């Protein structure tokens, strides 16, 4: 079974083990250690970590298309934001008549705009199941249409990157408009509860943090399963020699489309988990700069490893939190400097640093096997 294949890989088991240990540790330090104790993890920190984990899932999605398929998407923020908006619409409908204007059905901003009924595309979002489906389908459908047109015309490389930037920029402009019915530049906010649990309670925050951790684990395993399959090898082949792969009989544009859609759906899930934890979704998530930042996380962590993307997302966002607290103006310079330093000294990112020792050990072992006894070889 191709989906269970990652569980026989050591790197995946180590990743899942570390993630599980971290989730349990944070939970224990939050619940069991009394407030005020230096080791206590506050609800604020739990919430912050949950946000980082959703970014990590987003980074994994980007690494899948960039690291393995060679498609540098500078518009993955769009899929993240669409998933976020789908979740936001569900949360808006959960407010019910507790809004400022007390309208039983319409969200506040619609009352404010003097709308008298829900637009058709808001129907159904009061049901969690439907909203969850939309979290997957909305980014997936956009990726399907966009990818179909782009890959069929064999748009690749820098041109594709530019189009993805244009895509997310166009969506940002569209979502800024009040007439779109997504709250204009204020976005969707003032959420109350999710699945009946209050978003303001610490227990819900912990629950969301753990749910995000589980989603990251599942997303990682799914990506790993794709990458470790024959399709994953076709992806790498496409990345390195697209024409040659086509000549072998693979429908390259379909492979690209499939992986692109999977990646967009993962980004959507990440967005849906992000929104209830930060309490707002607005068009700034569509901004081109955010999408570029995601690519930076992956580059810093190390391309084409998946776990590197997770490390990169966590490190950069932690640094961002620290830096913007201490010297808000210096953050962008620090990010730029970090990027330059990593590119120069760690071309394969932080993950390359980790992988280096392991690779060298393996190489040495293999050389010993290869040289003395010809014909005896290890099939990994």
């Amino acid at each position: 079974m191709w989906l269970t294949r990652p569980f026989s890989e050591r790197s995946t088991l180590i990743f899942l083990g570390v993630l599980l240990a971290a989730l349990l540790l944070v939970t224990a330090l939050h619940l069991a250690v009394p407030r005020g104790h230096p080791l206590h993890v506050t609800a604020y920190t739990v919430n912050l970590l949950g946000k980082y984990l959703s970014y990590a899932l987003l980074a994994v999605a980007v690494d899948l298309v960039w690291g393995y398929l060679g498609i540098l998407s500078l518009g993955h923020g769009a899929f993240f934001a669409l998933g976020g908006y789908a979740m936001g619409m569900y949360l808006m409908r959960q407010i019910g008549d507790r809004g400022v204007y007390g309208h039983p059905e319409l969200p506040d901003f619609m009352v404010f705009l003097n709308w008298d009924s829900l637009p058709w595309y808001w129907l159904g979002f009061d049901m969690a199941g439907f909203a969850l489906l939309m979290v997957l389908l909305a980014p997936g459908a956009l990726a399907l249409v966009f990818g179909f047109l782009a890959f069929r015309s064999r748009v690749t490389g820098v041109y594709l990157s530019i189009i993805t930037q244009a895509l997310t920029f166009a969506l940002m402009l569209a979502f800024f408009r009040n007439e779109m019915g997504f709250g204009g530049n204020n976005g969707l906010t003032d959420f109350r509860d999710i699945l009946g649990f209050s978003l303001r309670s610490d227990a819900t925050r912990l629950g969301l943090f753990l749910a995000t951790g589980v989603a990251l684990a599942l997303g990682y395993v799914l990506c790993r399963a794709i990458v470790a399959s024959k399709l994953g090898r076709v992806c790498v082949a496409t990345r390195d020699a697209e024409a040659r792969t086509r000549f072998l009989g693979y429908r390259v544009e379909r492979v690209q489309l499939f992986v692109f859609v999977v990646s967009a759906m993962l980004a959507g899930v990440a967005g849906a988990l992000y929104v209830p934890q930060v309490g707002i979704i607005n068009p700034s998530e569509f901004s081109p700069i955010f999408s570029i930042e995601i690519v930076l996380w992956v580059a810093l962590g190390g391309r084409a490893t998946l776990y590197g993307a997770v490390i990169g997302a966590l490190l950069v966002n932690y640094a961002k939190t620290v830096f913007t607290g201490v010297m808000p103006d210096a953050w962008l310079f620090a990010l730029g400097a970090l990027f330059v330093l990593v590119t120069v000294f760690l071309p394969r990112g932080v993950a390359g640093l980790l992988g280096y020792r392991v690779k060298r050990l393996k190489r040495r072992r293999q050389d010993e096997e290869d040289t003395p006894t010809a014909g005896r070889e290890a099939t990994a």
Partner: protein
Amino acid sequence: MNFLTSLADRDRVFDFLVPAQSPVDVRHGPILYLEDVTVSFDGFKAINALNLTIDDGELRCIIGPNGAGKTTMMDIITGKTRPDAGKVWFGSRHDLLAMNEPEIASLGIGRKFQKPTVFEALSVFENLELAMAADKRILPTLTARLSGAVRDRIDEVLETIGLAELRSRPAGILSHGQKQWLEIGMLLMQCPRLLLVDEPVAGMTEQEMERTAELLTGLAGKQSVVVVEHDMGFVRSIARQVTVLHQGSVLAEGSMDQVASDPKVIEVYLGAEAEEEVG
């Protein structure tokens, strides 16, 4: 009424039930048959009334000076270039001019380009795995598993091309010659009936050339092989049948010695080199 009885006829084979691609028919001898093929680019006749017949299992070398139309001929056979006139048949059943590139490839014509392109980040084994004839749609590829038969087939090809010891190393570390062999191996994984090989020994060392010669002569018989090559020493070492192309048509055909002693050939092509070899 007749129509209804014809529908009820149980022996009837409906058109849509007949597989569109039936196996190659070589009962009448030739596996590849070109007749009066002509192509011109902007008035220049790259191929001019070319006639060529390749028998099943044959190893044929094609030589000729630059611009003789060797590569254009390969392009026509693989469907990349359409001729202005002429016939191209694969076996006695398949009209190659009515097919496109992927169809021709899946029919069993494999082509190796001059410059080797292997997937450098993947291992030698994985390169062969990807090249294997298999269902190449998304889901079958995603769920594909390495069965014992597949593994055996890859092992067999690894032995044939002499890269068994390097199977788990990335293809990027291979030498130029080894990459050429890997390419030939990737072609073999597609189980082709006819192999078109473009300048296989360009840039190879003496030893690598010898091994390539062994490899190609070993393939003949099981597959039909057409080799385009400049290197006379190499052609002499493998060829039983040599075809000399000149200005888009066949100048001479026969064994290497016959061809080499043909005054027309000496004049246009072999001249300098033949003298060198004699002297």
